[in-house]
């Protein structure tokens, strides 16, 4: 511990505190076996079961089905991470009293959220790396380094509205319903967005509903990067809209919580 007595005026140094908070989040995620298996293991498992048999087929655009499906399951992994890390976990921290303990401490609320965001993105990057490594070594799916990083970057930035949606769930529901919602949303929404089965093989009604789902737009960004086709603007606009709506709702729910007892 540093014994240097700084001036006891404002707050503590921000960067070491942020580092500690991110570390605490990463430890929480890594030490919860259900969470680690669910967010790191399931995407790999689903990819092995559903995608591996088809990876060598080629699409009209020249991209391989393997690349396309890798993006699908990567999107699924980000969705489920956002739902569990920000939905179920925040609901637990809120009702358990951890958030209240932090609120009485000198920790500024934005720093808490920033740390959660950074930790989630780091964990997501790990999840994407694992998935890619598996697809590469087990199925021979390959991206040129630049393209791979670009897709991963787009997916991670586009994950922010999913995180906002997770926060909404975390601040609006109790822990029991939050984990049910997290499960349902990550499976049903993934299915509805065409992540498990390509949309053109799904019923018309699902195809019509898909463009209202944030993960559909996120996957579109990735698929477009694979095929080198399509217009991304509309998808970014949808994702920004989701961020705005869910972010405002989460902020409102946070303040409502603050004003309320317990």
């Amino acid at each position, binding site marked *: 511990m540093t014994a240097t007595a700084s001036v006891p005026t404002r707050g*503590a140094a921000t960067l070491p505190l942020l580092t500690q908070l991110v570390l605490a989040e990463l430890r929480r995620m890594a030490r919860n076996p259900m969470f680690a298996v669910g967010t790191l293991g399931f995407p790999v498992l689903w990819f092995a079961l559903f995608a591996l048999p088809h990876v060598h087929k080629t699409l009209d655009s020249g991209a391989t089905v393997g690349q396309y499906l890798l993006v699908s399951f990567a999107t699924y992994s980000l969705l489920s991470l956002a739902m569990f890390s920000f939905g179920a976990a925040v609901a637990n921290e809120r009702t358990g009293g951890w958030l209240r303990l932090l609120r009485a*401490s000198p920790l500024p609320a934005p720093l808490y959220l920033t740390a959660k965001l950074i930790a989630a993105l780091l964990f997501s990057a790990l999840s994407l790396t694992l998935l890619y490594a598996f697809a590469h070594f087990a199925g021979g799916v390959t991206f040129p380094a630049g393209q791979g990083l670009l897709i991963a970057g787009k997916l991670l930035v586009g994950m922010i509205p999913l995180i906002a949606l997770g926060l909404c769930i975390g601040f609006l529901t109790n822990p029991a319903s939050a984990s049910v919602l997290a499960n349902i949303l990550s499976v049903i929404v993934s299915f509805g967005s065409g992540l498990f089965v390509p949309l053109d093989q799904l019923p018309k009604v699902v195809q019509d509903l898909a463009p209202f789902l944030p993960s559909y737009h996120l996957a579109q960004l990735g698929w477009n990067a694979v095929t080198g086709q399509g217009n991304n603007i509309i998808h970014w606009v949808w994702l920004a809209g989701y961020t705005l709506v869910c972010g405002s709702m989460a902020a409102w729910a946070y303040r409502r919580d603050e004003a309320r007892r317990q």
Partner: protein
Amino acid sequence: MQAGGMNAEAIELCGVSKQFGRVQALHDLNLSIRAGELTALLGPNGAGKTTAIELMLGLLQPTAGTVRVLDRKPQAARTQVGAMPQESESALPAALTVHEAVTLFAHMYPVPLTVKEALALADLLPLAGHRAGALSGGQARRLAFALAVVGNPAVLYLDEPTTGMDAGSRQAFWGAVERMKEDGKTILLTTHYLEEAERTADRVVVMNAGQILADGTPEQLRARVASARVRFTSDLTLTELQHLPGVEHAEVDAQGHAVLTTRTPEALVTALVQSGLPFSELEGTRASLEDAFLTLTANKPGVAA
């Protein structure tokens, strides 16, 4: 304003009311907590103790009145404040070790204690590597205490701190509180264990139904009741006991165990001896803070809301 100077009031509540829906939790409360003192806030459940502390922490906003901590708004004083909330086991970060949790909190404050010092204060050094989620109830309370003190705060709130601690933990805990007091910290605590308040508090504030009933040193509060208990076993009936000199209240069971309340225990015992009646198991106790507390809160059964 610098803490620890001659600034006499560390915390000031002026005309504070707090309403939750139709429930009036606090009613025009005026309370000043002097710097460097250990003040015990006593009262039955629902008296408004926790609400008062939450207002001082800035977790709640008063419906009316003002709350100042170290001459600032409560939110602005947080780097100088440590808090141990009531029954906070579920609030602790279960996945972190004791050492990691205390390290995290140390980083929130500008001039913290070392993690080791905080762990030693809370008697947690042997448990430093344990996960917070695996601690027993009493150990978890000690971790909550370590999180409250690691920031080296000028003001410390302890809400029912010893609930769930065993006798050994409790003794170590009060030793640590004593050291914080010697360090010049301002400490505000609520407790159900009145003998603890009696031993450690410089000042006792008794609350009921959101108002202050009494305020003074433990001695002053006891003096307000000014009665003693005399116990013995004899063949006297309840009526005979009630006619002994100075008896204010008498109880007796089928085996003849009598408990008498009186302001003049000496006169009572003299009369008993002089009566020549056989008695045994004589025992006398002065009024405890608990007696004072029970008398105070029983006489005023709450203000009509």
